[in-house]
Structures are given as structure tokens and as C-alpha cells.
């Protein structure tokens, strides 16, 4: 059953993924078990295939959609059983940039890994990031930029968080084609993630380190 669930996610079959989750739950499987042993390893496999250029963006989107279908059934149960989310992540593509596919994949994979995600969408102005962090008390702020011309917005956000004294309370993670490890250091972000899997690993690390 787990194998089938994983395969459904890996092959991007959302109806099947949903059906297998439903069946497994009916058989009395624990939601957290289905998540940790089914959805998460499946998305890790998808990430591997992406790294090896066996999967491309459409395949990853399809898998993420299947994972989300399964997760939709699990999430209310996890909340009911008082499983705390691993952490709260505020996420968005910076102002001037509408490229949100990568950011959406990161959001879905983070949710799949047990994070609560508040997605601000694309073309997000600096103040919107700052206010969302302030209001939600998020542990992590994730910003994405595909265009090098827009990545400077990230630096503006970091500066504003500092000015308002909330920088120490939040970990900042950046990603997207326009961003690198060097750039993350330069703007004093806490981490750079090159893809969705690395985003999950780094988000976990950043939540533990607090």
C-alpha cells in the first residue's frame, strides 16, 4: 500500500494518491505514518529525478499536485491529533517578479514535510513580507527571485526587518535562479536553497537551530 501511494505521487497520479490515502486510513494506518513513509519519501524521489534531469518542471508539478491531494486528506487528521506543524513559513516571490512555479513547488514540498506555509504569492512588495512575518510570528521567511533585476528586493526586506527590530525572530531563506549562496550571505540571509528538497532540509535545520 505504501509502495503504491509513493508510486502514485512519483508518477503524478493525483486521483490514485488520494484513493490510496483514503484506503490506508480506512485500514487504520496513522496519518503521520502515511506522511513520513509515503508522501515525503515520494517527493524526495521526485526531487532526485529532477536533479538527474529525468524529471522536469511539468513532472514535478504533477507530482506535487498528487502529493497535495493526499495531504488534503491527512492534514485535518493531523491537526485533530494535535501534531504541531514543524514550523511556520511565510513564502513569496519578490516584487517585480512573477515567476512563481519554483516558489509554489517549494511551498508544496514544505507542506508535505510538515511545515505550515503562508504563501503570499508573486510580485510581493517588501512591506507585505515584513507585515506577514510580524503578524504571523513565522519562524522562517522564504523569498524567491528568478530575475536578477528583482533580487535586490530581498535585501530591502532584510533591511526593513532589521529596522523594525524583528530580524532576530525570523530565519530568512532565499532561492530562485537569480540567487546564490554568495548572494544570500551578501544580504545577510540565513540560508540559500537551490531547489525544493534543499529548501526542506535547510528549513528543518533553521527550525532546529533556533
Amino acid at each position, binding site marked *: 500500500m505504501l509502495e503504491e501511494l509513493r508510486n502514485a505521487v512519483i508518477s503524478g497520479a493525483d486521483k490514485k494518491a488520494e484513493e490510496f490515502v483514503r484506503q490506508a486510513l480506512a485500514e487504520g494506518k496513522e496519518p503521520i505514518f502515511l506522511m513520513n513513509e509515503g508522501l515525503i519519501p515520494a517527493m524526495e524521489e521526485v526531487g532526485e529525478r529532477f536533479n538527474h534531469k529525468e524529471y522536469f*518542471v*511539468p513532472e514535478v*508539478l*504533477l507530482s506535487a499536485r498528487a502529493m497535495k491531494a493526499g495531504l488534503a486528506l491527512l492534514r485535518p487528521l493531523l491537526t485533530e491529533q494535535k501534531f504541531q506543524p514543524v514550523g511556520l513559513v511565510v513564502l513569496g516571490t519578490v516584487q517585480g517578479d512573477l515567476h512563481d512555479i519554483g516558489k509554489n513547488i517549494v511551498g508544496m514540498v514544505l507542506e508535505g514535510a510538515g511545515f505550515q506555509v503562508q504563501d503570499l504569492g508573486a510580485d510581493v512588495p517588501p512591506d507585505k513580507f515584513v507585515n506577514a512575518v510580524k503578524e504571523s510570528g513565522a519562524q522562517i521567511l522564504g523569498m524567491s527571485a528568478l530575475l536578477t533585476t528583482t533580487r535586490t528586493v530581498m535585501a530591502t526586506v532584510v533591511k526593513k526587518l532589521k529596522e523594525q527590530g524583528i530580524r532576530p525572530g525570523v530565519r530568512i531563506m532565499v532561492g530562485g535562479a537569480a540567487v546564490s549562496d554568495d548572494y544570500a550571505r551578501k544580504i545577510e540571509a540565513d540560508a540559500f536553497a537551490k531547489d525544493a528538497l534543499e529548501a526542506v532540509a535547510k528549513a528543518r535545520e533553521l527550525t532546529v537551530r533556533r
Partner: protein
Amino acid sequence: MFNITPADLNAYLGSLPVSRRIVRRVKPLALGLGPLWLLRRAGRRTAGLPLGTAATQLTGTSVRDNLTSGSTQFQTLMAAVRRFRPDGIGIISDLSIEAQACGCEVKFPENGLPYVSSKLIENPEDLEKFRVPDPYRAGRMPVVLKTVRLLSQKLGLAVGSGGIGPFTLAGELIGTERAALAVYTEPDFLHAVLRYATEVVISYQLAQIASGSDTVIIGEPTGSILSPRHFREFAAGYLTRIIKKLPVPVTLHICGDCAHLLDEIALLPIASLSVDAPVNLAEAARKIPANVILSGNLDPITVVRELDPRGVREATLKLLTEMDPYPNFLLSTGCDITPDTPMENIQAILDAVREYRYKP
């Protein structure tokens, strides 16, 4: 009426000076292979750089000024020609023009390139309402046509223009994420949007050519997110149709890492391929035919904008040396040069290319 028939174009081409007609007729001679072939005997290389956005510094204008006024952009490009004395000049690349002409909303950042901020087509029935926009009237298409016309009238240089590719335009019209998923979930709808996008591109590019463009660059950045199989199915056929309809040499530009698509791209009837910084250019040169010009691929940010002129020079010389074995190489940047790139850095690239002698 904007429909340009092949007869109109032939009449127009016939009115050109012989040298320009040759550029247009003999595909491999244009876009540098002509100069490349001549210069090769002296062991020299040429550079083809997207100078327009950075040249706005020379005229003290914003990118927006240039993309909304043909005479302003013409002045800027003339300033670039005077300052850098390039072998050809291209209009500022702006991939929001076609979608805006179709009816999408566009946002202009302060001093950057505009981007499409609304989707237009939600379902297949919407498509029936759509007409191919008239390039002489729709949105900012006339701005480009005017720029091209002025350049072509005033300069003896090859004039390059261009626009968006069909898959990227389809992504703007229905949303890129939807276009990506659609290769699996709604391929028929995607094909319908692509057919429309293809006609938009052809009509706009023909108008540019009729206005005096000697060569066009089709930018298909979103193509790089597809697998080779889907690139073949959802991009290559439409690109081929466009290229065959255009009576001038066509360059294909793909942003990001398109290394996995080179075998597919090699089959397209392009005169030239322009690739971005993540691609290993020498490997690309081994995959594409020797009669296709390969241009690239200095990193426009980490090298061209951020290094000092000496660093830019070193990076340019390194790339030139690496490309010694490939006569069809044209040095360029991987993607557009940013508006705030120092003029000295651009000069450093051109100086290095002009001094270099290669040993094939």
C-alpha cells in the same frame, strides 16, 4: 491593413541595397557568420551584445521611456552605436509586448523590463474571441516598428529585432504553471493556445521585417522547463513554422539551462542559437550543426555587471580561448545586460574580442 504578403516582402527586399539584400537572403552570412567568415582568415572574432538596456545610461533615459517611445529608443541605440561601434545593433528585448498587444496587463518596474501581470485565456472557448493583434496599432508593437524603421533608415549596420517564442507567450496568456501542467493535463487546449501564439508571433515579426529588420531573435525562455520530449511536441514544431515563415535569419534564444534540449534545438532551421550562462558553450558547440552560429554566454550578472573591467576582460578572453575550436562562435552575453551595468565593462568585452586572435 497589416497582412503582409510574400509579394509585399519581396518588393520590399528588392528595394534594399544589395549588401543588405545579401544579409537577408543568404542566411548563414547574416548575424555575424559573414563577418565571422571574413574575420576568421585573420583569426579574429566578433561580438554581438544586447547593448540597448545599458545604453539608456548614455541618454539619461529610463528603460520605460525607451520601451514606450520609438524615437527615444532609436536615440539610445544610436548613442550605443556611437559609443561602442558594434557590428550590428538590436532593439531592447522586451518579452511583454506580444502578450500586452493581445490584451494582457503589463507592469513597469522603475528601471527594469516590464512583465505580464494578468492572464488572458482561461478556457478553450475564450480562444474563439481572440484575434491576432494588428502590429501597427496594438499596444507597444508600433514603438518597436518605429525603432526598427529609424535604425534601418539611418544605419548601414545589420539591424536586429525580435520578440517572444510561442511556448513562452502561451505561458503568459494562460499562466506558466498551467502551461507546464497542461502538457499532461490538457494538451489539446495548450496546442490551441500555441497555434494562436504562433500566428501572433508571425504577424508581429513580419511587420518588423517589413519595417527594416535584417534578422530576428525569438526568445523562448520558458522552453527550458520542458523535457526534450515535450519540447519537441509543444515548442519545436511551432518554432519551425515561425522560422520558415520569416524571410530573414532567425536566432533562437533560450534563457536558463537548456543543455538537455540541444539535440532537439539542433534540428530547428535556425541560423543562430544564443544560450545562457548555465550552459557549457563548448559542449553546446559539439551538439549543434557547424553552420549554425552559436552565441553566448558571459554571465550578465556575476561577470558583466559585477566584476571590474579587468575581471570582465579575463572572463571574455577565457571564453574566447575555450571556443577556439569552433569557427561558428559569436561572443555575447548569456542574457540581457542590465540597465546598471558599467559602460567600462561592456567596453572591456568589446576590446578583448577585437584584440583576440584565435588558432583554429
